């Protein structure tokens, strides 16, 4: 087994053949085949605007945090894509491709458009609240809760739709109610701005969260505090 230069570049040359589906500020996302399965590959590419040593450390930390959070969620019974392989040299994560799914964002949008079944969305709100409560009880902070980062996978019957959380790129472990409150605040902002007239739906979500979480009261108190003072707001008047 020889060690030519082409050998070291295996993941990048693989990615050239794969299908890129998204490019963000932090990472590129591809779809490909890995060990015979359809996978999503998340590549945290080097940021040239950063100092190289800082970039390497930060990128590695983000990768490990993402992977750790996913494992923690799964161990607690929260649906998240299975991690198949992590390449710490190129900072690529090979994840299970969740097929036959629709994002919660698209689902709500189409449900609202077709003026359908509000009861249907109530059940969804309950499910989201319950799932986030379980996640926070495991001290996992998602960091980027939006309806685009939640998928609904159709089961055998339309009844039991699985809710899958994805994109743990900004996630970390924390027991602080403040962090959990901010996590919910991020979702609230994203939810209300993306889906008009959903205030009652979100309230139902929070109610479900409260019912499912053991430490909810202090988290919700923090949520109120964050709502009042706002996030990323310069207190300069």
């Amino acid at each position, binding site marked *: 087994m020889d060690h030519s230069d082409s050998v070291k570049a295996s993941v990048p040359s693989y990615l050239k053949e794969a299908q890129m589906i998204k490019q963000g500020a932090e990472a590129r996302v591809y779809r490909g085949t890995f060990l*015979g399965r359809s996978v999503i590959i998340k590549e945290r590419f080097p940021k040239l605007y950063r100092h190289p040593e800082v970039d390497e450390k930060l990128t590695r930390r983000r990768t490990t945090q993402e992977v750790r959070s996913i494992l923690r969620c799964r161990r607690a019974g929260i649906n998240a894509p299975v991690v198949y392989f992590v390449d710490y040299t190129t900072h690529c994560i090979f994840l299970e491709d969740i097929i036959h799914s629709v994002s919660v964002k698209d689902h709500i949008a189409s449900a609202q458009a077709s003026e359908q079944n509000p009861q249907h969305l109530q059940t969804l709100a309950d499910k989201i609240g319950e799932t986030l409560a379980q996640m926070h009880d495991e001290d996992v902070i998602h960091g980027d809760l939006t309806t685009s980062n939640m998928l609904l996978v159709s089961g055998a019957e339309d009844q039991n739709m699985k809710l899958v959380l994805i994109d743990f790129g900004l996630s970390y472990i924390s027991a602080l109610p403040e962090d959990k409150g901010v996590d919910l605040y991020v979702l609230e902002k994203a939810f209300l701005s993306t889906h008009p007239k959903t205030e009652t739906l979100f309230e139902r979500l929070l109610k479900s969260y409260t019912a499912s979480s053991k430490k909810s009261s202090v988290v919700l108190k923090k949520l109120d505090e964050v709502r009042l003072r706002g996030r990323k707001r310069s207190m300069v008047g």
Partner: protein
Amino acid sequence: MHLTQELELFPEYTVTQLLFKDVKNATELRKMAVNGEIKGALINPSMVVDAFQILVAANKAVHLHKNGKMKTRSLYSEIIFNLSPTNNISEAFKRFGISDSDSAVHIVLIHNKDETLNIEDIIGKVDGQQMAVDRVSDLTDVAKIKKLYKVAPQEEKCGSLLDAVVCRMATKDVA
């Protein structure tokens, strides 16, 4: 019967898996693996849920081997180590490698695409009955795996036992 697959990330290599039951010469086989007569990883099939699990371990082993970052001394011992949910090397060998008293053996070989592999030669060395690799789940000790990988019932809501095992294998360096 045997299974030969490619590693998409390393197209120059091929992974071949062979499975045997009613094996009578486990001690001999172990010796052959150690002295290099058999150039492969000898794995205890009761710890294998699916051939995919082996592929994941092999892929990681080849990756680390190429980057000079293996934790063990050889590619084959690295495959065995990668199967384990912990970072203790000797424990991994004990639990996932074969012991003298084992009656079933799962053999994993990695070779260059251009190399012709003499499978008959290896089959000849095993005093046992070859069975289809995709039937490895017949030999799986599910309870032992759940205990060793610490898979709780709640995790099984998210996916299969194979998913739980593979996820831990992929993330154990940082878990």
